Every structure is written in structure tokens, then in C-alpha cells.
């Protein structure tokens, strides 16, 4: 496709122009971001936001499940659990107790691309979080006893999230099929058998390989003094020596040639069909345009309740009870554009799969209207404002961009580029990428409950689950 330079900015509708102008006038001067890289290679990024007397601290390690190898899946996430199990000076469980005593909230998350640890505190207690994080970056104690208990907790987590969820199993199978060589084919939580066979030594090796300051980014956001935060970072993280990191092999996913299919049988009531196409991720925020066009395409298909997929499959044809589409451009590994649908009573996955593809074919043939395009852009613009209500999200975005190897300063460029996407470009990426040769189809084939229909109480209540 044509490079960016051939694109001309879209003539905006009056409403969109008005939106853009009101934003320009009313957005507070974009709070400054201060950055410093410590001599040991750790990046420190501080974003001030003084709306509330609160600070968020997030430390991002560029080590996620995509850095694991066969037989060792799940170790990134297991190590995340073990990071709460004590250091030489801070006994097991004490990290959480001290943050709690300071009124803080804390946790951690592991993804395919990274592992991140976070605390939210009143601003006066931020130093505690940095001190404790630096301690466990360097001084983690990995005891076989704690590991033996915690690996059971992780297996419970896998049972809860995946083993007992037909939809989660479908997603797991979709990933394992759509990716052939990329480590993205493994679930973040790991395969159950790998968890059963994991040892404390596996966790230790992971920690020693990846938990070093030159593989970490500290992001702090909130009502803080950047110079003071950087001073604390130097004080606490500065003395931790850098270590050479393992060589990261690119593990590029080969280009797909031909549709792949997988069926998952699991106890459930409703079938589901999920379609995933290989698409490009964002690698150069300034020069790329296809990932932005794919983001807009996702909005055209599923940006609101009357966007194309819901309007067609759920509302007009009534052949699906639910439908969705999505694309995440920010990742270290190969991206997928995913659409899924749940057939309505009396319909089949074959029918809804055909209908999903027909909507894409229609878009490729007829293109998208300026009205639709501007509608998605209006949502993008508003989203840019709304996200500023969350300190945590602001820090998270910086961390995600940075660990994905992108310049976080380009987050603003992204909005400009999204606004510049044309109708032709949306049509072009749909035609180029949402094709059968790049497609994986995963079908959930619902099975009856193995023990028969469970006895259900009379006058029962509550379809929701807690937490």
C-alpha cells in the first residue's frame, strides 16, 4: 500500500472540527513527562497529574510469556506470584502488608509481552513503593516451600480462568492454532502440564535472566515532583548492577497461506465462532498507516451498538445474540484482528460465520461512508479525553508502549494519525488482510453437561459472578 506521505488529511465534518477545536481549547496544557535513564540502564518516566493527591507507581519488565520456551510455559506468570514471597529483608507477604498499611493498593499482571507490578498510594507514601520494588528486583528469596504452595495457587487460577470456561478454552485453542511458530501460541498462564512440572529452579532462572534494571522501566504518574521521583529511583534502583540479557530471537511468524480451523468441544449451552486474521502491528508510529486503518476498521465494525456487525447480525438479521470485533495494534509479537459471534437460537456457526464474512466482503466492495468514518473518529477523540480520568491508565499506556519497543511520546501522533485515516485506507486494509489465506476459524461446539443437568433451585437468583 501507499506510504503515509501520500495521504492527505481528511476534510473534517463540522462536528468533528468542532470537537477537535473544543479539545484544543479546553484540554489543560498537557502535563509534562520527565524521563531519565539511570547508569544501570533502567528507564524512569514520570508524568505529573495533580488532579488528586495520589501517585501510581508501575515497574515494567520486558519479559512476558513470549520469552518462554516449550516445556516452560507459565513461568513468567509464576514468577510474578513469587515476587510477593519475600526478600532477605522483607519476609513473605510483608510487601503487601506494608503497602496496605500505607493505605495503598497493589498487584501485578503478566501478559505475553511484559510483567508489571503496581502500587497506588497517597502521594506522600510513594517512596515506600519504590524502595520495596527495588528490594525485590535484586533480593528475591525463592524458597522451595513457598514455591510448592504457590504453584498450587497458580493451578487453581488456571482452573478458574481456563479449565472451567468453555469460552476461555476456545480462545486458547484459537491462539494455539493461529500462531504456528510465534510463542504467542502459548497461554500466558501456561499449559497445565508445564505448571505441574515446573520447579523453583525454573522460576529462579527466569528471575536471574530478566529481572535486571536494564530490562525494566519505572513509570510514575500523579501528583509528584519529577526531580524527587528520579532522585528516589537513583537512590533505590541505582545501586542494582546491570546484567547482560539473554539474546532475544525474533521468532517471526511465517506468513500464513490458507485457512486454519479448530473445533473445541466443551460443556456449554451456546456455540461461538471466532475469526482471527494475521495483520500488521504498529512498529513505526510515524510512518505506519495500516495498523491505524485497522483500528478504525474495528470501530466501523464494532465501535457502537449500531456499528455494522451488531446492526446486521444481531439487530437486522437476528441470527446472533452477540457479536464483536477488535484489534490491538500495540504488541511485541504478531497481531491478529479478531471477530466473534454467538449464534441465536436455531442458527448455526456456519450461518453466522458466513454473515461475518459477508459484512467484510460488503465493506471491501462498497467501502465505508464519510459519516461512519467520522463517527469512529469522534469516538477516538472523546476517548482521548476520557482516558485522562484514570491515572492508572495513563501510566499503563506509557508502560505498554515502552515495553512494546515504541516511543511513548508517539501516543499523541497516534491520535493525529487515526484522524487522518481515509475511507479508502479502511477499505484497503480490509481487502488486503481480512482474507481467507490469513484466517483462523475457531468454533466452540457446546456439549451437554457431563453429569446431566444440574439440579436447579426453585426461585433461584443471580446470574452474575462475584469479583
Amino acid at each position, binding site marked *: 500500500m501507499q506510504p503515509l506521505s501520500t495521504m492527505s488529511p481528511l476534510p473534517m465534518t463540522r462536528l468533528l472540527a468542532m470537537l477537535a477545536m473544543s479539545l484544543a481549547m479546553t484540554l489543560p496544557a498537557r502535563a509534562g513527562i520527565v524521563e531519565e535513564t539511570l547508569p544501570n540502564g533502567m528507564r524512569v518516566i514520570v508524568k505529573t497529574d495533580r488532579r488528586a493527591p495520589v501517585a501510581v507507581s508501575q515497574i515494567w519488565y520486558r519479559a512476558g510469556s513470549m520469552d518462554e520456551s516449550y516445556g516452560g510455559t507459565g513461568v513468567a506468570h509464576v514468577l510474578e506470584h513469587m515476587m510477593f514471597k519475600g526478600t532477605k529483608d522483607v519476609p513473605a507477604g510483608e510487601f503487601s502488608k506494608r503497602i496496605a498499611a500505607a493505605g495503598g493498593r497493589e498487584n501485578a499482571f503478566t501478559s505475553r509481552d511484559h510483567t508489571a507490578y503496581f502500587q497506588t498510594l497517597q502521594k506522600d507514601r510513594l517512596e515506600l513503593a519504590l524502595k520495596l520494588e527495588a528490594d525485590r528486583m535484586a533480593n528475591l528469596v525463592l524458597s522451595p516451600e513457598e514455591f510448592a504452595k504457590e504453584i498450587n495457587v497458580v493451578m487453581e487460577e488456571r482452573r478458574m480462568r481456563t479449565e472451567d470456561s468453555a469460552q476461555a478454552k476456545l480462545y486458547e485453542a484459537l491462539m494455539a492454532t493461529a500462531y504456528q511458530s510465534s510463542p504467542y501460541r502459548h497461554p500466558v498462564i501456561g499449559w497445565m502440564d508445564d505448571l505441574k512440572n515446573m520447579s523453583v529452579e525454573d522460576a529462579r532462572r527466569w528471575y536471574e535472566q530478566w529481572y535486571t534494571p536494564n530490562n525494566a522501566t519505572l513509570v510514575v504518574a500523579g501528583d509528584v515532583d519529577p526531580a524527587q521521583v528520579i532522585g528516589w529511583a537513583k537512590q533505590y534502583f541505582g545501586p542494582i548492577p546491570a546484567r547482560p540479557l539473554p539474546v532475544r530471537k525474533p521468532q517471526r511468524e511465517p506468513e500464513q497461506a490458507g485457512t486454519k480451523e479448530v473445533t473445541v468441544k466443551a460443556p456449554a449451552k*451456546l456455540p461461538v465462532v471466532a475469526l482471527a486474521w494475521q495483520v500488521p502491528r504498529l512498529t513505526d508510529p510515524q510512518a505506519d498507516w495500516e495498523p491505524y486503518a485497522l483500528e478504525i476498521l474495528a470501530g466501523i465494525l464494532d465501535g457502537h451498538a449500531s456499528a455494522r456487525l451488531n446492526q446486521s447480525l444481531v439487530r437486522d438479521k437476528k441470527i446472533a445474540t452477540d457479536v464483536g470485533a477488535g484489534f490491538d495494534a500495540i504488541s511485541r509479537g504478531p497481531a491478529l484482528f479478531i471477530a466473534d459471534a454467538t449464534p441465536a437460537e436455531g442458527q448455526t456457526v456456519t450461518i453466522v460465520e458466513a454473515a461475518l464474512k459477508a459484512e467484510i466482503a460488503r465493506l471491501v466492495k462498497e467501502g465505508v461512508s464519510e459519516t461512519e468514518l467520522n463517527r469512529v473518529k469522534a469516538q477516538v477523540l472523546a476517548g482521548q479525553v476520557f482516558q485522562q480520568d484514570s491515572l492508572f491508565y495513563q501510566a499503563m499506556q506509557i508502560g505498554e508502549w515502552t515495553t512494546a519497543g515504541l516511543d511513548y511520546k508517539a501516543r499523541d501522533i497516534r491520535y493525529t494519525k487515526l484522524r487522518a485515516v481515509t475511507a479508502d485506507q479502511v477499505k484497503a486494509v480490509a481487502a488486503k488482510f481480512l482474507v481467507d489465506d490469513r484466517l483462523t476459524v475457531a468454533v466452540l461446539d457446546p456439549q451437554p453437561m457431563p453429569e446431566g443437568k444440574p439440579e436447579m433451585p426453585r426461585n433461584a437468583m443471580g446470574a452474575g459472578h462475584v469479583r
Partner: protein
Amino acid sequence: MSAKSIFAGVLCLLLAPAAWAGLNIQHWSTPQGARVYFVENHDLPMLDVNVDFSAGSARDHKANSGLANLTRHVMGLGAGAYTERDIAEKLADVGAVLSGRMDADRAGFSLRTLSGPAERGQAIALLEAILHTPRFDAAILEREKARVIAGIEEAATKPESIGEKAFQAALYGEHPYALDESGEVASVRTLTRDDLAGFHRAHYRAKNMVISLMGDISRQEAEAMAAGLAGGLPPGEAPLPIPPVSMAERGGERVIPHHATQSHLFMGLPGLKREDPDYFPLHVGNYILGGGGFDSRLTEAIRQKKGLAYSVYSYFMPLEQHGPFRIGLQTRRDATRQAVDTARAELALYLAEGPSEAELAQAKNNLIGGFPLRIDSNKKILEYLAVIGFYRLPLDWLDTYSAKVAAVSRDDILRAFRARVRPDAMMTVIVGGQLEGQAK
């Protein structure tokens, strides 16, 4: 449509109330009698609006269970001059996000919009139409009934949903808090356009309405907006109270077989009202028992010491009448009895001895020290406005929160827990299997 998000929201509130001197809540009533709660803040060019009615699932009956939910849901799918498609598109055109809210007590809508007059004007006009003149189009109703029924049937395969339903039924019996917000397949099938229109007429009235506004508008603009939102509704009368909950004298245990790899535990009883003299002792005390995550006894005993569960917790969910107290966990099938026994032993110990002074101090440090986090965004502040308004809590509820937490003693906690959490009246539901030696 799902109960999940709302329920989780209420939980957060319970775990996370606090006060911030300087959060200036303005309160007034519209000429039609709707109560309005407003915090003016111009930091960001955006506005959050919430409207709630006392029209939750507790207004349903067994025969029409699901009516409150379906009414609220279909209101947003065609109103006044707008088709369902118009509503979705015109909201999207200004980047506004409208979502529904539903629990046993409350039904309503949340709207997030840019605060410029054109954007907010268009979004508010749509919300007004939805509240005042919903169409309840028959074809749309039939389509949405089928979707709700599909959701109910899918939920009936999932252990957490099965257990939740059985637990609510065990706690509340004939009380409307036993009813599933989504309803039952049979009851939803019977609902008609007239049912929905009638429910709307009966419950969506100005005197039954609480409007919360947070963000970038002036007091004058807020007054006009609130008057417009309430203005198209008949005043009506203040809602009838939800009937009181009668407590069971004796508890019981019920095991529902399920093939899942984990068993799910639901244990508890009707516990706490929103306006309740024991609110703070139970709130602080529950942090120590099972509300404080890694800082709680249940997590320490079941997850940290024994590795039996990923998630284990307790909570009080305060409602207009006594909402549930629950201890919950999930564990592998062959550990079911061990986990249930451990949870019971921890509760028994807590009821016998209460918290230590150190635990109490730790809980207070967290709840009071974490106060600024609880109102650090427009979204969180809006939630507090909605709760304070709906339950008629004092306007200084946030301002006095820390002092009330600080005043709680060990004896307060012990007395309140013993009064409310009576083991002989506790209902236990276990969905799963492998319970050797079934308990009473």
C-alpha cells in the same frame, strides 16, 4: 444485562468508601421532586451523569421476574423521535458513552460525554428521550427477550452462576432479593410490551429519581440539565420501601453436583443494610476477615498457607434491606472439604476472639490512609454521589468516613459480627463435587 458489573461496583463501594474534605457536594431537588447531587469540576472537558430509579429487580415478582431488567434495557432501544439506530449513532457522533445499571435496588443509566455544549446537549437530549418516551417496540422486545433467555441458559451451565442463584434463593426465600435480575426463562417468555410500558409508568417517576452529575458544567447548567431530565416524567410518589428481610432461624448446606474441575463455595446470610448502625464495625471487621485481599485472614489461611485457592474473600453487600454477607472461594474438587472446613474454622475463630489490636490498626491504616484513592477520578466520585443520593446518606458521609473508621473498636467488631454472622443460621451452597463425609 449482566449482573456482574453492577454487583462488582457495589462491592468496590463497600470496600472503598472514604472522605475528602473539599469534595463539595451540592444538593437540591428539581421542581418535579427528583433529587440532584452535583460536584462541579473543570479539570477535564467532560461530564458524567448518572440517573437511578428505585426500579431494580426487587420490584419484580416471581411470575414476571426479569421485568425490571428488560424494561431498563429496552428503554435504550428506541425512544421518542429516535430509533434504536439513531440512539447508538447520535451518541457515537459526539463520542458519548451510555451504559445501563441494574441491581436489586436500583435501575438506571450512566452517561459520559464531552462537556462542550453541542456534545453534551446532543447526548442529554437522547437520555431525556430514553427516560421520558421509550417506545418499547414489540419486535425489538422479542429480539431482546431471546437474547436474555440465551444468557440465562448459558449462565445455567456455569458453576459460579448456578451457585450464586442457589445462594440467593437459600438466603432470601420468598423475598424479592431472591429473584435473578435477568429473570427466568419461563417468566421472561411471558413479558409483553404492556408489561414493560406499565413498569416504566409505575417506577420511572421524578420522585423516584436520583440524578448525579460530576464534571465540567456550572451550577446553573446543572440545574437546567437536571430539570430537563426530570421534567418529562410525572412526579409520582416516593417509592414504597422494599419489604424487610426475615432471617432464617436455621441454616443449611446444599451440594449441587457439577463436572467443573473446581468446586465453588457460597456461604453466608442476609447481613447489612445501607443505613445500618453496624455499618462501620462490619466494614472494618470484614477487611480483616476477608475483605482486605492479601491483608485478610481468609487469604492468609486458605491461599498463602495452604495453596488451596486463587481467590478467597468475604464481603457485605449493603442494600436498602439486608444485603448478603458472603464467604466465597473456588478450589480443586478433591480439596473441597478441606477448604470449606478451613473457611468455617477461620470464621469461628474470628467470632470467638475478634481481631487483634494489631490487625485492627492495620485495617484502619489501610482504610483511612487509602482515602484519597477512593475519590481520585470523576468516575469514582460519580459512584459515591449515586450511592449517597439513592440511599439518602448524609451529604457529609465521605467527610466523616475516616473518623467513623477510626472510632471502631475490637469490641464493636466482635459485637457486630456476633450479632450478624450467626453460624447456625448460615447457608452454605457448594457447586462441584468430591465432598467425602457430607456435612449437616
